[in-house]
């Protein structure tokens, strides 16, 4: 599954994160000086346009490579619009629209929001909780126009952006499009709709959550082996051991669900029921794992993990925040449950076993 090019792309990403996204440095830097050099290095490496084919001005990496990069970004607790720009580039490429330079994001990112393309060629509607809209140069938009779905590229400056902050401390903004004229738009491929976009975004977030959990496990195990209480390392207390064993279990479940869904999308011809199961299940299970895992990581750290000075929150709060983007676990559970119910009881096992 992991071939050599896969590893090279991930290693490139990991090297940039190690050099320019050190969690201690970022956590101590109140002025945000770390952002520019990090984003410059990422852009020069071509990673933000991983999912854009070379004929659309991208770096043409495979879906699998891109997903592996997002897992690494999660491990680094990356606070930059890498996933968002990758997803925007991917969305635009579906309609053969070339990606511009600079940071991008995608809208809508919430299942209840809907953007339309009016007859006069302007975009109408409001998208809430759009990640990293502030700071983005462009927004890739999925919009409805009469009977068709279109994909549009719009300048962020043409939209009204109300700044917000998500749970993890990263921008989560409301974007109002009313009257904005896209730079370009094109009809989406047959069968591509808002659900397709949300599923893709959900798998991206699932890999990021799994990555954050991997780091939460690492730093929690290291801390337990180092912290002394009652004249013992706290890792010697069975209650602490069992909590960490559960954290390992949740991390494993998240990793398994997310990498399975990424593999499914990477090898799928279409977003059929099987891909839907994989992607929705990944988001549901990763969100559950984030809740349980983050709580354990904090419990093991005691008060120190509750301080802004400690790096723990960079991973715990992001894992929790990422649950909400592109449909949360309740949303996908209802959708998945409806699909299973419609197929009928005797078709459930064949569906599960087909994966």
């Amino acid at each position: 599954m992991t071939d050599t090019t896969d590893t090279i792309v991930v290693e490139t990403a990991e090297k940039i994160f190690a050099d320019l996204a050190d969690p201690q440095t970022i956590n101590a830097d109140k002025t945000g000086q770390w952002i520019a050099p990090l984003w410059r290095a990422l852009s020069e490496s071509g990673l933000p346009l991983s999912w854009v084919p070379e004929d659309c001005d991208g770096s043409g990496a495979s879906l699998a490579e891109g997903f592996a990069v997002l897992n690494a970004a999660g491990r680094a607790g990356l606070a930059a619009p890498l996933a968002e720009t990758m997803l925007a580039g991917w969305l635009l490429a579906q309609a053969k629209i070339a990606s511009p330079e600079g940071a991008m994001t995608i809208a809508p990112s919430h299942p209840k929001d809907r953007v339309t393309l009016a007859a006069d060629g302007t975009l109408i509607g409001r998208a809430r909780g759009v990640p990293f809209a502030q700071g983005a140069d462009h927004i890739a938009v999925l919009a409805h126009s009469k009977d068709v779905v279109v994909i549009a590229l719009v300048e962020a400056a043409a939209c009204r952006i109300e700044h917000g902050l998500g749970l993890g401390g990263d921008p989560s903004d409301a974007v109002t499009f009313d009257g904005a004229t896209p730079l370009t738009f094109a009809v989406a491929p047959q069968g591509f709709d808002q659900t397709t976009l949300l599923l893709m975004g959900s798998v991206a977030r699932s890999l990021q959550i799994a990555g954050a959990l991997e780091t939460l496990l690492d730093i929690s195990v290291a801390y337990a082996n180092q912290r002394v209480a009652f004249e013992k390392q706290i890792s010697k207390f069975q209650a602490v051991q069992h909590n960490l064993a559960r954290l390992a279990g949740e991390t494993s479940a998240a990793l398994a669900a997310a990498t399975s869904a990424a593999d499914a999308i990477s090898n799928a011809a279409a977003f059929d029921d099987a891909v839907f199961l994989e992607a929705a299940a990944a988001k549901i299970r990763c969100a559950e794992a984030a809740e349980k895992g983050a709580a354990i990581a904090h419990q093991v750290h005691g008060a120190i993990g509750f301080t802004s000075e400690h790096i723990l929150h960079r991973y715990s709060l992001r894992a929790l925040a990422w649950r909400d983007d592109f449909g949360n676990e309740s949303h996908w559970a209802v959708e998945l449950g409806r699909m299973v119910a419609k197929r009928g009881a005797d078709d459930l096992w064949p569906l599960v076993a087909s994966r």
Partner: protein
Amino acid sequence: MTAALRFDPIRLPPVCEELRKEVRAFLADEIAAGTFDPHKPQREDSDAPEFSRRVGARGWLGMTWPKQYGGHERSFLERYVVTEEMRVANAPTRRFFVADRQSGPVLLKYAPEHIKMDILPRICRGELCFAIGMSEPNSGSDLFAAKTKATKTDGGYLINGAKIWTTSAHIADYMIAIFRTSPPTKENRRHGLTQFLVNMKTPGIKVNPIAQITGQHEFNEVVFTDAFVPDDHLLGEIDGAWKQATSELAYERSGPERFLETYYVLTELVRALGPEPDTRGAEGIGRLVAQLHTMRRMSVSVAGMLQAGKEPVVEASIVKDIGTLWEQQLPHRVRELSAFVDAENSNHATLGELTAFATKLAPKLTIQGGTTEVLRGIIARGLGLR
């Protein structure tokens, strides 16, 4: 550290899907012929020796073993498919399940050649039932506290003491058991236990049934009074059973039987809620299916690692920890969601019956084969905490 935790997205190869069709067709025929009722999950209680032979005749026992012993040299992933299809269909697997999963592999590794040639082909034909004799009244999780003694005598050993909770002892042909051959040493409290193959027809063995809260009869007390076991029935190293116990655990812990034991209540819930459940019902189904799918993907991943010759002991323990808790909680979740079932046009009665049965069964799932607490200890060791 986490580099050690791996759950690669292994997919079952096409040969498995062909096999799956064969197994489904076979099980459909068995159901049609009245061998078992897929809606009655009584597999622990029903012995089906003829069914066992027919499964053997299909080549689905000893699937991964060498051909010289009657095996079929197929992959762990193929065995995986057969196992999961049998579980989901509620097929009566008790006669062959332990022999195929656990006892056969132990014999392959530790038994003398003539014993292997004698016994393994009979397991593959579905003729033999095995029991596992580990637990004793005062030795459960603490396996190495076992006291039942094997005393050296002419040509073999005399066994005295008792095993308890021994599943299938009342129908078993053989037991693989651990007995004390020496006292523990100061340096190693695990020292002194030896693994033996015991013919259950040996004089001096008495099997006493123990009733369970489900109303079924599955486990027993087995009392040994000067029961003779010949020298060539000793398995592996004398006093060294502790070295042999751990490597098989990955096979035992991560299979589909570790999360599918109560699966039938989920199917019946989906049936009862119908094609258009309300939001609460849909969400409940969706979550359970997401969790089930994730566990299966984890479990297939471990099977893939086993096939690749790895020993994913920690991953396997994680699958069992999460899987058994899930199958234990499943009837409770289904019970909650059955509040939203429409009483008129549904299988309400079946659902209620099955949920009650699964609820009674549930407590054992996190005890048998190593408790949750013991598993978490193993995971913690793998994490470098102890």
